[in-house]
């Protein structure tokens, strides 16, 4: 590089020095905005409570791990939490199985074997695009009219409904690049269709299936709108917390919140590590 060029570069950087900081600073501000509530939650899950009612307040009273030790001391909250977990597990299993099969149908078949495939694709899109309130309200109406008691079953039905399409989309993306000759090779080597599915197809689309399952689980565990409509007596975690705000939030809510966040982060890190290792 010539001296003149170097001088020009130096001049340019001097002139623009402060403007270069704008976008990075802005990005950090956005990050702070995103993380702030979570940090508050984590920090205040270690806050002492003074006074009679064990409720969250934002005066710092000193560090304690009391709420972690007494995590299950609020019976309603603990119940709601386990209900959410059970609900998420059941809804995830059902929607992953259904969604994977739907994705296979969509990728493998077209008219005339699969009549109305276009309509089906539109429905999937609509299901993702439609506001949740629509599904919640219409399901509530349906269950009330049919006189079906609201509870675990209605929650499962609703959660499967909104997560199944996400599974379809993720699994389908994985299937799109699937080399069909691998299945032919399996048949050729004496594997019947079901064995081929279990030994070749499923292992190969597993990353997509797992991603879909994770998404279904995440959608289910933090769902409020639909669940609020359909929970009845059995309130899942988000619905219970929302209800509790009328009286005040027990600090255990922060403990559960922190725990859920930690699990989420752990999954995210695991997936990054796994995909890195895969890339190598």
């Amino acid at each position, binding site marked *: 590089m010539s001296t003149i060029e170097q001088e020009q570069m130096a001049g340019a950087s001097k002139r623009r020095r402060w403007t270069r900081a704008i976008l990075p600073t802005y990005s950090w501000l956005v990050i702070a905005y995103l993380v702030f509530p979570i940090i508050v939650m984590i920090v205040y899950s270690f806050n002492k409570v003074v006074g009679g009612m064990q409720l969250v307040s934002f005066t710092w009273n000193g560090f304690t791990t009391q709420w972690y030790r007494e995590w299950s001391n609020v019976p309603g909250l603990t119940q709601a939490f386990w209900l959410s977990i059970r609900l998420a597990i059941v809804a995830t299993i059902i929607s992953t199985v259904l969604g994977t099969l739907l994705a296979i149908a969509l990728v493998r078949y077209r008219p005339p074997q699969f009549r109305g495939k276009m309509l089906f694709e539109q429905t999937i899109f609509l299901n993702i695009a439609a506001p949740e309130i629509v599904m919640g309200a219409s399901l509530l109406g349906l269950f009330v009219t049919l006189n079906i008691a609201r509870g675990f079953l209605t929650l499962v039905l609703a959660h499967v409904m909104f997560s199944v399409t996400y599974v379809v989309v993720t699994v389908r993306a994985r299937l799109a690049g699937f080399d069909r000759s691998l299945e032919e*090779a399996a*048949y*050729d*080597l004496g*594997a019947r269709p079901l*064995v081929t599915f279990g030994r070749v197809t499923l292992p*190969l689309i597993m990353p997509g299936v797992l991603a879909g399952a994770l998404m279904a689980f995440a959608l289910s565990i933090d769902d409020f709108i639909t669940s609020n409509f359909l929970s009845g007596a059995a309130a899942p975690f988000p619905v219970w917390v929302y209800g509790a705000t009328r009286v005040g939030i027990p600090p255990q809510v922060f403990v559960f919140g922190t725990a859920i966040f930690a699990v989420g982060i752990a999954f995210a890190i695991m997936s990054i590590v796994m995909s890195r290792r895969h890339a190598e």
Partner: protein
Amino acid sequence: MANRSEKGAGRSRVATLESADVEFVHVTKAFSDVKAVDDLNLRINDGEFFSLLGPSGCGKTTSLRMLGGFEEPTMGTILLGGQDVTNLPPYRRDVNTVFQSYALFPHLNVFENVAFGLRRSKVEKSEIRRRVGEMLELVDLPHLEKRQSAQLSGGQQQRVALARALVNQPKILLLDEPMSALDAKLRRQMQIELKRIQGQVGITFLYVTHDQEEAMTMSNRIAVMWRGRIEGMGTPKEVYDSPATEFVASFLGASNLLAGSIDSSDASRTVVAIAGGARMVVPSERVPDLGGAREVKVGVRPEKIEIAAGAVEVPANHNSLTGRVRVSSFTGVGNQYIVETTVGVDVTVYAQNIGQQSAPRSGEEVTLTWPVEHTFVVKPMPQAVVLEETEGE
């Protein structure tokens, strides 16, 4: 090949191998309106290395896929060792395939890939160990058992694909253009390897390729396919030296073809009058069934022609043409000439570099001579077909 049951001794299928051959009986496969395979009749003998050769879209791969069970014939019957397998799914046929893309299972290592078929047929664990080991030895990859297939080179992947198919000791092994992804040098090496392996295992090979050299190097017999039909079949030498149709003559190697009509014919000799005025003598057994038509094309391979400067005396039992050299090019192993003949057709001549004193130069008058027995006659293809095919490419 005769002693292959001896070599296969100790293997479970030796007894059935004796009757194992393949027969396509009036097999047709239509995709909507297009007949990919049109009334195919073919018999592949036990232990043979048989090649289906033809340009892309000629129906060779469809034929192979029908035998593998991946396509169902629209009409006709496929017999495998005398048994009708026309409607059997692939997993119930005693046939294994080496796919063009190799189709190795990416989630399994080399050992598990090769063991896949044996595990499906519930072979004992120790037996699987032994046979997979043997097979990897045979394809010269015994040290790669634990490798993932993605970590293998193209040539290694092909060997694994071969081992994975052969370890099941099928009645017939199908190979679908297995060398198309390899570079030229590796391809040559694999051709020799494949021939060696086939000799060692004694299994019938059905090899599909568009590469004529590949087919001729390895095969016991070749069928040249075009537009869903077999245009010519026989040993590489038969198919090359006496092509049955104009298509075979031009697809397999290079041919000089001169249009003409049959002038006279007896039991041993047929005389053809060439459009430009010359007369060619052809052995009568080289003349295909023309169905009464007289229009033919007379052919001769470029390397069968002897080229000499000036006017020379034509030896007995030879055909000849005279002309002027238009292009003369030295290719190292030989000289290639394009000669503008007096009958109005350009003839290609290929002369080996065996140290001739003077090679004719371009512009020089030459005489071309070749023995009668190296002259053949083919039925001309309709002009419309020729055009259609060139456009299709």
